[in-house]
């Protein structure tokens, strides 16, 4: 099922939408939440259309257009997005107005844009793409489901498939998830995420699009050789068994992996499992990324972006390193889980 990443558009809390940059300057925050650094949207979307769009729709369209331009593709073979909570700003706008105004004098715009597939639909409208279009909303593997479908489509013969993940962290969303223990109680600097022993993580958001295809191009970042997911493993040992099974099914052993991109989010309730996995890769450079983008349902997409950029540039920015091993990236394993329920593994190679 091997595919190549031929274009990327990444709007995140770092200045990643500029593909010429790679974490030279790092943005941090002190309020347990990392919010997107935005490009100038007028460069991508006409003002008459922009006026109606919430941030996530602008980000979704702009990240898609950046990725398409990067890959030199006009019309993708499919548009598939993943999102945990969808267009939350529009959803809660309609919801709160409905509650506050007692179901009176409501307007349709926020409602019609509240559906999770608004972004995939609006990308299609903005480039007039009539091809396959889908949106997955499956918690911590929403992005992985879109990637997996995209890889299947490439195998079915579709060209230049756009896959992506997006989520947004509005003020109320941050408050709400905080009430069920998603975030740390005391504020920390985001760059200290991996050294903090509190329960909970920090909030984050991004919109990240990839153009994938069965064929390599001059702009290819890396190949995605394989991916898999698994659900609620019985034990930590079973997680390692799954990782080993995954690698050995591609005739690889842990020593073949140069870099592990690990989804540590600083939550003392659930981060230990990453150490269990990383111990199996003593010869690899260990890297983390959620101190740069925060925790959200589709944050794995940032991990995929990091892996692809490292493979293309053949470099590992010091800000992502978790150990002192220095490897030249050739094979990268991305490991992620959310609340020890949904796990995913991705294998990427230099191309």
């Amino acid at each position, binding site marked *: 099922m091997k595919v190549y990443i031929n274009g990327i558009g990444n709007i995140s809390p770092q200045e990643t939408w500029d593909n010429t940059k790679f974490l030279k300057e790092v943005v941090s925050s002190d309020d347990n939440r990392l919010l997107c650094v935005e490009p100038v949207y007028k460069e991508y979307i006409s003002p008459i259309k922009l006026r109606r769009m919430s941030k996530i729709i602008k980000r979704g369209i702009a990240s898609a257009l950046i990725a398409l331009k990067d890959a030199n593709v006009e019309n993708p073979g499919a*548009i598939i997005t993943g999102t*945990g*909570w*969808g267009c939350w700003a529009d959803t*809660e706008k*309609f*919801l*709160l107005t*409905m*509650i506050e105004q*007692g*179901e*009176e004098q*409501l*307007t*349709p715009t926020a*409602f*019609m*844009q*509240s*559906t*999770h*597939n*608004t972004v*995939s*639909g*609006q990308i*299609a*409208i903005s*480039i*007039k*793409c*009539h*091809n*396959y*279009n*889908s*949106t*997955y*909303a*499956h*918690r911590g593997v*929403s992005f992985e*489901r879109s990637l997996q*479908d995209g890889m*299947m489509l490439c*195998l*079915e013969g579709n060209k230049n498939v756009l896959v992506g993940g997006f989520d947004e962290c509005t003020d*109320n969303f941050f*408050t*709400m*998830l905080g*009430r*069920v223990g998603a975030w740390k109680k005391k504020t920390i600097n985001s760059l200290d995420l991996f050294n903090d022993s509190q329960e909970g993580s920090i909030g984050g958001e991004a919109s990240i699009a990839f153009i994938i295809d069965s064929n390599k191009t001059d702009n290819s970042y890396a190949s995605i050789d394989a991916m898999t*997911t*698994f*659900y*609620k493993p019985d034990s930590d040992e079973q997680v390692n068994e799954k990782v080993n099974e995954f690698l050995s099914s591609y005739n690889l052993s842990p020593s073949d992996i140069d870099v592990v991109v690990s989804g540590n989010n600083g939550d003392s309730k659930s981060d230990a499992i990453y150490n269990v996995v990383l111990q199996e890769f003593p010869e690899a450079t260990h890297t983390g990324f959620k101190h740069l983008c925060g925790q959200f*349902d589709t944050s794995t997409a940032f991990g995929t972006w990091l892996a692809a950029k490292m493979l293309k540039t053949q470099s590992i920015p010091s800000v992502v390193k978790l150990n002192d091993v220095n490897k030249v990236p050739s094979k990268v394993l991305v490991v992620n889980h959310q609340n020890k*329920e949904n796990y995913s593994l991705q294998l990427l190679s230099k191309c």
Partner: protein
Amino acid sequence: MSTRVFVTGLGTISSIGNNVEESYQSLVNSKKGIAPMTRLDSKHKVNRPIAEVNLTNEELANFVNVKTLEGCSRTSLLGIVAAREAAVDAGIINELSSERIGLISATTVGGMGETELHYRNFIDENGQGAHLDYINSHDCGESTQRIADELGMKGYQNTINTACSSSANAILLGSRLIKHGILDKVIVGGTDALCKFTVNGFNTLMILSDKDTTPFSAHRKGLNLGEGAGFVVIESEESAKAKKIYSEVTGYANGCEAFHQTASSPEGDGAYQVMTEALTFAGLKSGDIDYINAHGTATEINDLSEGTAIQRVFGDNVPKVSSTKSFTGHTLGASGGIEAVFSNLAIDRKTIFPNLSFEEQMPELNFKPQTDVIQDVEITNVLSNAFGFGGNNSAVIFSKV
């Protein structure tokens, strides 16, 4: 990639029945589930009839043996009922822990029905207010995960939200996962509970009818919202051997009309695209279709656009067409699943279900929907349409084996 995909189990709950048999009886007896609101406490009670499932959350929970109701959405409960019925029907209820069995469920609003009651608590900055367990049951994926957990499933799970075409897309994706050899069996469909959020949302678009919905009628006034869940079990050829087979999933297509966020083009280009692609995929000619279970929401735009597209595909030989939303209301993310169950029942029970409440023929169309039930009729191929916001269109063809 040559594997065939068969439907081996059906399950549904909606305003016209708590299971497949009750639903079938309602369908053949022209008994619709549309009535004034009773369970939902909305201001629009007086003039917006809807199609509610006639069970409280407590009754639903007892029915499927869910122990803790707090933190379990009505969407999940409806989904558990229908997914379980489909799994029992397919004889796979005792093997669901296999990693070769998947669950793909669609929903448009997940736990919104509970969120809208407690949202002020959820966002209280002083940490006041109760029912916080419903925060974790809001997102769409939770309902799928909950169904999987209640049924003891461990394999592939996914949640689709492409608005009203969601559960048709679950059937597409499930079929492709089987053809790729990733899964042997998948429970596919969708679930959505009624909530004030969707009632008010569709009301702002001015497409909710103040009387019983009249699909494909000249003076139609829009849709009635409904709730429910519908799932079918699909299996690979190998896995379905020696089982009762309802139909084969022979054709499907999805596309984006890329015309407007909520409206389809009057020419029905998007609907035309997916219907013709599904026919080509199935290797069928338009004349091979015996029955179309239409999307048929009875909005001015949908029925014109879908009707025109049907006319363009089928010319002067439009097969029997009906919108069973005239029974169940529009169940949004569940509609493609419920209508897949009905499409399979049409083949299995040799029945064409009527389009209730039809009034006057649309002047733009050369056909009228089927208004009476037809029984003892051989049905070989059924086309089921599902169209959603974002211009997301899907068509699925089920064929008698």
